[in-house]
């Protein structure tokens, strides 16, 4: 509860920041606030605070809250130029913070109404942020598509909640779980579960419900794309895990095959489509969908308590995505807005830091052995094999091999070509965030158990 009050208080403060003349140092206040949020989560560890039967701050919620805050801190530092260069400074800050409030509700809900409200509080500010490039038609289009499909998915979620309510007579997760485990699932409960599964698959952009994601990720301002691909995805996966491991835990026999099919489809479709992309932003969008496929495998094996693995995967993926998207945006603005792989040709000659960290995060995302991304994928594959999904692990390995191809396409363009374009100079804060992301990835690859065992 304290965490939620802190973040919403920060949001209100940022609305007043123009009035209180806080504009200059506001980034620092937000970062301190988020560090405070991490501190509060550590202080509440093992307390299992129950907020009026609506939210349950258990270790799962707190751990994902810490991961969300860590990626948000990295994101805020990397996006400082997005905030500094525009007139709607306080609006954008508060929208991001209110969206994080929704995320916190989603991480800890224990009542279906909080699931619904959390998703809406998370999404509605994002609709605005995606369209924040007001004069560009592609940004408008992305906002419209995101809005329409978000509302569409919410309607499915609500119909599912209504049917579950009809079958069990309650919105409380624990009551629903108890009712469902009494006997074999009836048709109404099964349909409700299926509709909620579709809605959550929409939100995490898993195939065949992923088609909005590449368009929205490409059209949105790059920093907002980075926020959606990291913080929002973290939260959506945590909510997905929470819903299906606790509330629908007794229906595993029915939904496991659907989860396996979604994971396999996501891995194949996303990787094959990413391999033929020439626009780097769209390539990163498809790579983010393919990572959703790996996370779906972790979700599928939830009988073995894979929440620690999911936590680790999400953290590694978020850090490397933030580095990749912020470098993409720096290169794009320095290359007259070009988003093609051509813009990255000879990047090593233009700025060594950008090329080095970009290559590092791409190697990590593709899962080359000493990297953190390799450890994350390895853990997911072993969980799949332990649960008897050998074929799914094989599809995952094929997907990773295709991923190596398209990540190396960019890496070769960066290192293997000469460039006659002007060198890129980066600010100290940009250099700081890149080094921080790289160090974070190195630390995660050396000490994976520090993260995983928290939820073991």
């Amino acid at each position, binding site marked *: 509860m304290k965490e939620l009050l802190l973040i919403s208080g920060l949001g209100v403060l940022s609305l007043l920041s123009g009035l209180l003349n806080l504009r200059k140092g506001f980034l620092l206040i937000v970062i301190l606030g988020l560090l405070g949020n991490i501190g509060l989560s550590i202080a509440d560890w093992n307390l299992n605070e129950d907020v009026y039967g609506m939210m349950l701050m258990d270790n799962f919620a707190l751990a994902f809250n810490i991961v969300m805050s860590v990626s948000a801190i990295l994101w805020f530092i990397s996006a400082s130029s997005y905030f500094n260069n525009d007139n709607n400074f306080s609006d954008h800050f508060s929208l991001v913070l209110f969206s994080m409030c929704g995320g916190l509700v989603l991480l800890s809900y224990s009542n279906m109404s909080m699931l619904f409200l959390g998703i809406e509080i998370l999404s*509605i500010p994002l*609709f605005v942020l995606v369209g924040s490039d007001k004069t560009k038609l592609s940004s*408008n*289009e992305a906002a*419209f598509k995101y809005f*329409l499909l978000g509302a569409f998915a919410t309607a499915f979620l609500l*119909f599912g909640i*209504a049917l579950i309510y009809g079958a069990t007579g309650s919105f409380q997760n624990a009551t629903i779980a108890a009712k469902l485990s009494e006997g074999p699932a009836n048709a109404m409960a099964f349909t409700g579960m299926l509709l909620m599964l579709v809605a959550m698959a929409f939100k995490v952009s898993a195939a065949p419900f992923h088609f909005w994601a590449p368009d929205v990720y490409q059209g949105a301002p790059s920093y907002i794309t980075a926020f959606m691909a990291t913080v929002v995805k973290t939260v959506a996966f945590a909510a997905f895990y929470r819903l299906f491991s606790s509330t629908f835990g007794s229906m595993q026999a029915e939904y496991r095959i659907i989860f396996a099919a979604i994971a396999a489809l996501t891995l194949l479709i996303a990787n094959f489509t990413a391999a033929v992309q020439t626009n780097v932003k769209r390539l990163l969008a498809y790579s983010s969908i393919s990572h959703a496929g790996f996370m779906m495998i972790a979700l599928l094996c939830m009988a073995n308590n894979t929440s620690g693995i999911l936590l680790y995967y999400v953290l590694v993926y978020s850090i490397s995505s933030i580095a990749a998207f912020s470098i993409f945006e720096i290169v794009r603005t320095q290359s007259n807005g070009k988003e093609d792989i051509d813009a990255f040709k000879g990047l090593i000659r233009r700025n060594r830091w950008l090329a080095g960290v970009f290559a590092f995060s791409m190697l990590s995302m593709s899962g080359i052995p000493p990297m953190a991304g390799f450890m994350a994928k390895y853990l997911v594959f072993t969980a799949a094999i332990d649960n008897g999904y050998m074929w799914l692990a094989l599809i995952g390995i094929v997907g990773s091999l295709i991923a190596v191809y398209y990540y190396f396409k960019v890496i070769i363009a960066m290192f293997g070509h000469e460039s006659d374009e002007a060198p890129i100079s980066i600010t100290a804060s940009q250099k700081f965030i890149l080094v921080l992301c790289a160090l974070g990835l190195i630390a995660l690859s050396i000490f994976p158990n520090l993260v995983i065992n928290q939820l073991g």
Partner: protein
Amino acid sequence: MQLISGIPLIYYIYLSAAMFSIGALGVMIRRNAIIMFMCIELMLNAVNLLMVAFSSYMGDNSAQVFVFFIMAVAAAEVAVGLAILIMIYRNANTSDTEVLNQLKF
């Protein structure tokens, strides 16, 4: 309350499922943005109807409170949606979604 209970529950389920499907089909088939918004409202109202019917049959008020949440959130959502639509109209001078073809493979 008695008026609602006069009709068998299964009819409410059929009616709201039909409304929901009409709304979902409308979103997928129609190309005018305003009509697509209306179809989403239809889907949400189908949910409201179902919630109220269940709540009345079970004698439990929590679903009726939920319906208020849905109505409030739907209003907030449409406010943002219409703002996005006005933004598109300013740039493209139409509310037809056929102009939205900037982003593709």
